[in-house]
């Protein structure tokens, strides 16, 4: 069963992966350095599929994609936050790290609580309660369907997004 790592409001990309640790593109090295200073036990304790539940403005700051890559490489299956900073959210979607915006769950859970997340539907089960995430935008959904932005562009090109804007 996946477990929750709970974080506060305003978790910056500097907290997720400090500037001294992102001088690499190596995913394993990034995973090891995830929250290395803000929560030094994190990368050792996180098990595949575990879930981050955070407060407001998660991922604020730098555009460093090393941040969602580090979380992904640490094995985290989904990040649920009351709100996400724009660039982090877009980066996470682009690399295939599930991110779910959900306001209600935060006050109902504690660190270490068991949780189940269906990343496709955004349904979250924890402590006998069910929560729903906000529906992602249509571009985010198309990227999630393809897996990553690179896959979407490789397989369908910009037409995948141009078509949906023309349909409006």
């Amino acid at each position, binding site marked *: 069963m996946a477990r929750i790592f709970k974080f506060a409001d305003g978790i910056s990309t500097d907290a997720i992966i400090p500037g001294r640790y992102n*001088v*690499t593109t190596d995913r394993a090295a990034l995973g090891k350095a995830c929250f290395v200073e803000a929560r030094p036990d994190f990368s050792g304790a996180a098990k595949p599929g575990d879930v981050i539940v955070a407060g407001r403005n998660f991922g604020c700051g730098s555009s460093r994609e090393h941040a969602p*890559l580090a979380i992904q490489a640490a094995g985290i299956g989904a990040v649920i936050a009351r709100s996400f900073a*724009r660039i982090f959210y877009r*980066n996470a979607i682009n690399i295939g790290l599930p991110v779910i915006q959900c306001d209600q769950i935060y006050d109902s859970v504690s660190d270490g609580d068991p949780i189940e997340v269906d990343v496709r539907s955004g349904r979250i089960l924890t402590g006998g309660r069910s929560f729903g995430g906000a529906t992602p935008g249509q571009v985010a959904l198309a990227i999630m369907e393809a897996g990553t*932005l690179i896959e979407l562009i490789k397989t369908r*090109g910009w037409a995948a997004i141009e078509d949906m804007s023309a349909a409006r």
Partner: protein
Amino acid sequence: MGTLTEEIFSRRLGRRVQAGDVVVAAVDYAMAHDVTGPLAIEAFRTLNAPLWDPERVILVFDHILPANTVAAAGLHRMIRDFADEFGVRNVFQEGICHQVMVERGFARPGGIIVGADSHSTTYGALGCFSAGMGPTDIAVTFATGKTWFRVPETIRIELRGGLPPGVLAKDLALQVIRRLGAEGANYLAVEWGGEAVAAMTIAQRLTLANLTVDFGGKAGLCEPDEATRAYLGEAEVSDLHPIRPAYRELVEVDAQRLEPQVACPPAIDNVQDLSAVEGIALDEVFVGSCTNGRLEDLAIVAGYFQGRQVSPRTRTIVVPASKEVYLQALAAGYIQTFMEAGAIVMNAGCGPCLGRQHGVLGPGERALSTSNRNYAGRMGSPQAEIYLANPAVAAASALAGAIADPRRVA
């Protein structure tokens, strides 16, 4: 019709575009630097596509320049190999990417630029829609010359009145962040206007546009005007105005009633009036960054340092934003003034702002910086504290060895 953002996208797409529309738009330039560039290059290579246009790809070495570790040198090598292989000539090692983008004339009114750095909002000062994105987005633009946008709604900020002595563009931005909070403009564009902006130099407007991302903004725009024309040359500036714009929110700030603002640790929106934090002892003062490392900023600091000594218990580090700024500061005598006053002057680039190379803070240390981020761990130890303020406050504080009011420097 519409906000500056809607006008720019409507012109680019040749049809009326409104906030909320999802569009795929051609961009003028795509920029990456020595930290985000390697991820962008790796992602670009997985596309197996030719480079869209080598003349419109900009690569800047600034975050770790010169390389301070073997790992950093390896990333630099990788970027150079990519540039050689694909014929990218716009490779620069002459300052912070955002300053270089402006100095080199890539940022123009009505343009659209994407950069793999959050402070790419900076070019909005010239009326350019510019947004920070991550390396994967930039990689796709490297291959296609396009990216997708959800055209943002706009918060209009009207800065009324003139700036009192000791109060600078930085203080107006921090006051707005104090009011709106660190995610006050998340997903939104910001228009900076009003008489205080009209009276500002381009350097001051660059500070406003730069800090827009630090309260979440996707872009921060100033309407191009006579100052823009004087800065860029007449031919570069076409008419661009908001036309019957519908704003999501209007925020008014009375500049005349402001005192210098200080963002206190550990968050950009933990802003206090200078008087509330005066006297806090400092181990480091950093003057520089894409927010406040331009010639005007250095001139202000040199004015305070002339004939004085910085406090011996404080490291004072000055980093010009670019080689161009450095050369102008040399010619004006500022560099000599800094060094005679006891400050350390370092090569143009990002400097201590992101704690990756020189000027790193130790546990329990306190710094005051003219940069833009004060998260725990940003400039070094997570047990260090960072205060953000304008260059005049930085100068007065360097002299005192503690946070000080520039209006009271004798």
